[in-house]
Structures are given as structure tokens and as C-alpha cells.
């Protein structure tokens, strides 16, 4: 189906025409989505949403991308939202389709990503009667959404969509699900898109409490060894400039969490690498030794803190977060500030005095020399780290990197330098294998002008491998770097270290991925050595369209450094070669 780009006149004309008109719920939904600026839906049709699919072709300004599994639709909406910095939309029918969305919605919830998931349900007359493909998706998704709705009257539909987009995209963003029974799509009502929102129980606090900001500034001004721990909240609040300004003014080194990567330029002299379980030794040392820790837009995840009692033992902790419930949840807090990262940073900067921390930075430099994060294993072994480096070199960092979950995710975090804002997308909180490829689809659709690299392992890749069909059909030019080691690598690593090398169900083997990509009609390249890898990445970059790079890396490479779960910096394992 040819899709015509809608002009502004088209939309205005249509909007003008729609208001006050009587129309079906399906039309009301489409009109409402257009009002919210939706241009893409990742969806899959099914019985009860057919009334909606029947009118979708009337709205050429909405591009519907047919995913091959609803989970991929939710992940794609997630990638679309993060790369495009707007609300992502996914659509599924009732029952099995709605439950297929659950993983993707949960991932978006854990990572605070604004998506609106629309599901159909059986007609209101048979709701609760165990009708064909009926599921209580409203109940199922209650704990995994920021908010959800079951729309039982067509008159409520426009207002609900308005609220859903508002809730998803403001405060601490998150997924909102709207469940719509079949008859609500069919029934008619007069369309009025509300101008205002009335949600008395929902008023996110953006501005920090002035007294608390002063108290935080006071701590920062007195600090001898301060550290900033910046997370996804900085990216979400688009507070990168403010973060740089604060760090430079008071000369504070900045550690970014996994999802905080690209929230602070990694080439900056004050940038420290990711902390935590697979974080840099020097970042963990900095947290261990600092006297003031400023957490901004992050939630002291257990993968960051390790053993909570041993986390930042010498520090006063300032915690800035837009979600009050995150403050004091995992880690003690001396100065809590509820507010949006950008607002609070703007309040903090004038209160903080210019400072230098030469001695502290030199200490950190010492740790960097002692335990560098990014040393490659010597020799010619084709390890996955080499492939990540090759992508970095080929792109010069000018790309959006989307990862799946596992070893390669950690290497992608360690061996790529994220200077470009909004350039790193990963399922951090939930760790949903299968996220990489569909999220990369979403990212590429949102930002077609950008190079999008999906770095995936052969385990996670196979969980949403069917999306190769979506990529081929829609010609979505994502580059897939498949770290093919024939193992569930992180499982194998844990079994090697904690279970005495008893590799239980960690071996994958796997299909011939080049043949597989061929079957889908996608260009595929294979590399078995470092040199081939470099050439393959370059060829993939030069090719205009989707490419799968089957990178047959060494099977038994481990991610280091590693702090075993529940451990602290004292338990850190370094790369064996680095240990002697």
C-alpha cells in the first residue's frame, strides 16, 4: 500500500472536519491519535480490532507497521519513543495478543519509557463471560503500567486517549494501556477532543524544593571528593547541557548508569564509565571513596549498588528524582529532592560555587591506570569486544546503538563511547531478551536519518527473530551485529564462575544465520576473524538498507570486571590476564 505523506493542510482540514461530527469509536480513536501527533503504530490485527483496522486506511498520516509478534510491537514502540523522544504506540487484539504485549510493556515500565498500548477486547455484553479470546488485560497490566484504562463507553474514548498520552509522557514517563471492547469501536458518538485534562490525583512535581536545593548545594560546596551518578532521568528530562554545566562548574566527575549512557558526553574529561556489576573498577572505587554522591534521575538499582550496606559508605547522598517513591527506597538518602532533573539542575547550578578537585581527580586517574575498563585481550582472538570497537570506529560514534540483553549488552556499554545524545537504547531494568531487534526497528522508524545498530546475542536474537520479516517488508535499514558465540553467553559465564563450569542448557548451536537472512531477503555478511569483522562492519555501513552481520566470535569470553551479585568492590573480579 502506497503511503502518502500528509501535509499540514491535510491534517488541519481533517481536524477541522472531525470536531463535532458523529463517528464510530474506531474513527474517534484515529482522530484522537492524530491530535496527539501519532504518525506510526506498531500493531498486529485480530478479531475484535477489525473495526479499527477497517478504518485505518482512511488515515494515511498514520503509518501502521505490521509486526510479526505483539511483543515486538511493544518493544518497537519503546525504541521509537526513546529514539524519537515522543510517545510510542502499539496495538494488539484481545486475549493472546494482549498477553503477548506484557513483556514489552513491563520493559517500558521498568525503564520509564512513554508508550501507549491499545488493545481490543470482546464486546461489553460478553465481558467477564470467558468469551473467545477474552482476557482481563486491564487486571493483568495493572502492576506493569503507569496507569491503564478499560473504556466501556464510546463517549469516554477521546478523553481517555488524551489522558493516556498525558500520563505516559509527563512526570516519570511510563506505559499506559487502553483496553477497548469491540462494540466501543463500532458505536458512534460526537467527536470532541478535549483541550484540558482533569486528573486531580496526578500532578508531577518538577521544580525542586528550594530549601532542599540549598541543602544539596551546601553539601556539594563542602565536598572534597564529590561524584555525580546520572541515570536515564537525565536523558528523559533532556538535561544533558545542565548536567555538563554543573559538573564543569564544581568540577565533579560524572558516572553514568547503563541507561544513563549518552546522558553525559563520554569523551568529556569528567566522564567516568558505567558503575556496578560489570562497571569500571575506577567508577566503583570513586563511589566507594566519595564524600558526596549526587544521584540524578537514577534509582540505585541493585546492579549498580551491589551490597546496599557497602554502597558509598563514606558519602552523604543527595538524590534527585521526579518520582518521590524512588527516594529512600533502596539506599539511604541525606538530601532528597523531588523534581525533574532539568529543573533541579537549573536550580542547583547558581547555588553551587565554582570549585576544583584536582587531588580527587588525580586519585581517580590513578585507579584508571590501575584497572582500565576497556583493554582488549591481546593477540588476534576474535572476541565480541573487538566487534563493538569496530562498530564504534566505523560510525565514529555517530549512531544509535540498541542492544539486546546479556554479555554483548555489557560490552556494548563498555567498548563504545557514547558522545552523541540519545544514542544508547537497552532493556535495562527488565532485561528482556528479544528487545534488541524490534527496539532497533522502532528507533530507525523514529529517526530514519540516523544509523541504527542493533547489537544482539544469538540467544536474544532468536526470541524475536521473526521481525526480520518486518524489516524486510518495510525496508527498515537497521544494521544487526549478531554476536554469535553459540551460547547463552551470560548464563554460560555465571555457570563457569558460580556453578563450577557445569554448562547446563547454555549451549545454543544455532541455525545458519546467513542462510536465514537470505530466506527473509535480507543482506547478510559473515565474519570469523578480527580483520573480516572490520570489513563486514564497513560493508554494512556502506550498504543502503538492512544488513545482518553474523559475527562468529569466540565462544567462551567473559565480561569483566565483575562484582558477583550482592557483593561489593572488595569482591570485584578482573579480567584474568589483568590480574597478574
Amino acid at each position, binding site marked *: 500500500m502506497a503511503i502518502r505523506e500528509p501535509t499540514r493542510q491535510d491534517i488541519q482540514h481533517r481536524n477541522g472536519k472531525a470536531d463535532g461530527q458523529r463517528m464510530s469509536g474506531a474513527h474517534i480513536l484515529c482522530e484522537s491519535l492524530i491530535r496527539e501527533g501519532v504518525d506510526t503504530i506498531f500493531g498486529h490485527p485480530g478479531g475484535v480490532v477489525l473495526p479499527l483496522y477497517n478504518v485505518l486506511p482512511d488515515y494515511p498520516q498514520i503509518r501502521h507497521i505490521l509486526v510479526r509478534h505483539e511483543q515486538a510491537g511493544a518493544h518497537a514502540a519503546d525504541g521509537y519513543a526513546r529514539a524519537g523522544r515522543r510517545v510510542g504506540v502499539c496495538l494488539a487484539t484481545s486475549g493472546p495478543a494482549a498477553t503477548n504485549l506484557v513483556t514489552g510493556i513491563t520493559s517500558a515500565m521498568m525503564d520509564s519509557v512513554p508508550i501507549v498500548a491499545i488493545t481490543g477486547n470482546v464486546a461489553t455484553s460478553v465481558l467477564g463471560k470467558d468469551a473467545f479470546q477474552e482476557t482481563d488485560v486491564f*487486571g493483568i497490566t*495493572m*502492576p506493569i503500567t503507569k496507569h491503564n484504562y478499560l473504556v466501556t463507553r464510546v463517549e469516554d474514548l477521546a478523553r481517555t486517549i488524551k489522558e493516556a498520552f498525558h500520563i505516559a509522557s509527563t512526570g516519570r514517563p511510563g506505559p499506559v494501556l487502553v483496553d477497548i471492547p469491540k462494540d466501543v469501536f463500532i458505536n458512534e458518538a460526537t467527536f470532541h477532543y478535549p483541550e484540558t485534562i482533569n486528573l486531580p*490525583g496526578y*500532578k508531577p*512535581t518538577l521544580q525542586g524544593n528550594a530549601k532542599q536545593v540549598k*541543602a544539596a548545594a551546601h553539601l556539594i560546596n563542602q565536598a572534597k571528593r564529590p561524584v555525580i551518578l546520572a541515570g536515564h532521568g537525565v536523558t528523559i528530562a533532556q538535561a544533558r547541557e545542565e548536567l555538563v554545566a554543573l559538573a564543569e562548574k564544581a568540577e565533579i566527575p560524572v558516572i553514568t548508569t547503563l541507561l544513563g549512557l549518552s546522558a553525559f558526553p563520554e569523551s568529556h574529561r569528567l566522564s567516568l564509565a558505567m558503575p556496578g556489576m560489570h562497571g569500571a573498577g575506577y567508577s566503583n572505587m570513586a563511589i566507594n571513596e566519595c564524600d558526596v554522591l549526587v544521584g540524578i534521575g537514577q534509582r540505585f538499582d541493585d546492579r549498580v549498588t551491589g551490597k546496599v550496606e557497602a554502597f558509598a559508605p563514606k558519602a552523604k547522598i543527595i538524590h534527585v528524582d521526579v518520582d518521590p*517513591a524512588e527516594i*529512600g*527506597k533502596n539506599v539511604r538518602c541525606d538530601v532528597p529532592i523531588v523534581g525533574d532533573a532539568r529543573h533541579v539542575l537549573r536550580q542547583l547550578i547558581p547555588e553551587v560555587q565554582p570549585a576544583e578537585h584536582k587531588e580527587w581527580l588525580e586519585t581517580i586517574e590513578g585507579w584508571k591506570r590501575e584497572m582500565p575498563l576497556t583493554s582488549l585481550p591481546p593477540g588476534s582472538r576474535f572476541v565480541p569486544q573487538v566487534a563493538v570497537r569496530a562498530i564504534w570506529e566505523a560510525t565514529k560514534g555517530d549512531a544509535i546503538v540498541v542492544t539486546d540483553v546479556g554479555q554483548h549488552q555489557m560490552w556494548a556499554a563498555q567498548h563504545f563511547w557514547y558522545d552523541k545524545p540519545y544514542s544508547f537504547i537497552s532493556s535495562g531494568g527488565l532485561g528482556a531478551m528479544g528487545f534488541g531487534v524490534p527496539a532497533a526497528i522502532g528507533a530507525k522508524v523514529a529517526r530514519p536519518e540516523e544509523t541504527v545498530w542493533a547489537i544482539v546475542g544469538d540467544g536474544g536474537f532468536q526470541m524475536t527473530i521473526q521481525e526480520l520479516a518486518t524489516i524486510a517488508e518495510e525496508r527498515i535499514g537497521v544494521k544487526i551485529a549478531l554476536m554469535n558465540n553459540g551460547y547463552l553467553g551470560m548464563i554460560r559465564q555465571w555457570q563457569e564462575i558460580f556453578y563450577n563450569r557445569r554448562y547446563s542448557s547454555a549451549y545454543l548451536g544455532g541455525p545458519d544465520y546467513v542462510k536465514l537472512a537470505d530466506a527473509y531477503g535480507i543482506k547478510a555478511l559473515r565474519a570469523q576473524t578480527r580483520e573480516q569483522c572490520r570489513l563486514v562492519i564497513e560493508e554494512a555501513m556502506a550498504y543502503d538498507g538492512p544488513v545482518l552481520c553474523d559475527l562468529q566470535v569466540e565462544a567462551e569470553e567473559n565480561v569483566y570486571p565483575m562484582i558477583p551479585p550482592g557483593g561489593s568492590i572488595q569482591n570485584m573480579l578482573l579480567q584474568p590476564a589483568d590480574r597478574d
Partner: protein
Amino acid sequence: MKHTLVALLEDKPGVLNRVVNMFSRRAFNIESLTVGHTEQPHISRMTVVVDGTNTDVEQVVKQLYKLIDVLKVSDVTQDKTVFRDLALIKVSTNRDSRAEIVQLAQIVGARVVDVAQDSVILQMTDEEEAIDAFVALIRPFGIKEMVRTGRVAMVRGAQGVTRAPSFEELAHPTQRPRYEARKKVPVDLTGEAG
């Protein structure tokens, strides 16, 4: 220590489910929970009793606030508050014991609301401890059945913090007290950091 929280909720479908679901998911231990209407239409009021020794009460309050349908949460434990619980107790009786049971009920202010050949139903409204004491007293006669509502609470005086907001107040939510604004966090401004 037991904490009593009063939450005002928008009376929307699934709101009780949302609250209970969240408690269960967050592994919060709830001693009792009651829900009912308020002086304002479309606003429900919930009283939750939480044991502070096994559950982080501040987290309970914050997580409640996160729910979109929750308008206001107050910890009234430290306020001058009226606490009440209602119990219906069906006690076995016979010719010999009935008079004594009725007399005991009269002493503690419980009412006899049903009389049958071999049982009476007593209704008692009081603080939980008083009801507990009465139940212990009456138990030897044989309790056939008992139901209790769980605690409800209301702060004394004209300016109760638990009053439900009117529609006008809801339309101007800036007047709504924020949780973090009420919370006092001690900050050491004098001591050397570290």
C-alpha cells in the same frame, strides 16, 4: 508501631484492585483495610493499618501517591484521631447464660441486635483494643461467628486533614498539600560532609 493511613481515592473502576495489587506486589504487610463513601460524591475513603516494624510506611504512602486515582494520603498516627472498629459477634446462649451475656454487653456498650433460641448477635463499636478485650471476655460462652470491619479513622477538630476535597478544590489542585512538602527531613547543614 502501627500506622493508620487515610487515603482519598477517585471512585473509578478498578481502584480498589489497583491499591490491593500494589500492596501485594510491593510485599507490604497490611493489617486491615476498609473502603467506603465520603462526604463528596465520586470520592472514596480508605483506612489502612500498617505495621511499621515489618513494612516501610513511607514507601506505602509514596507508592499510594503514585497511583493516578489516589488524591491524598495522610498518616494520622500522630494526630489526635478517633479510631473505631465495628464487630458483630454471634454468641451461643442458653437459658442460664443469656442474661449474663446481655449484662456484659451492656457494661461495655455493646448492643444486642438479634436474639434467637440458642444465640444472640452483639454489635460493638469501639477501638480495636476494647473490642479485643470484650471478645476475650465473651469467648468462654462460645463464639459461633464473628465479623469485624477493620479500623476507620477521623482526625478530631474542625480542620481535619482527612477531609475530602470538593470539586472546586480538585479543579485548583495547587492547594493540595504535597506529601514531600509535609515531610520533615533532617539535614545536617553544619557538620563536615564525610
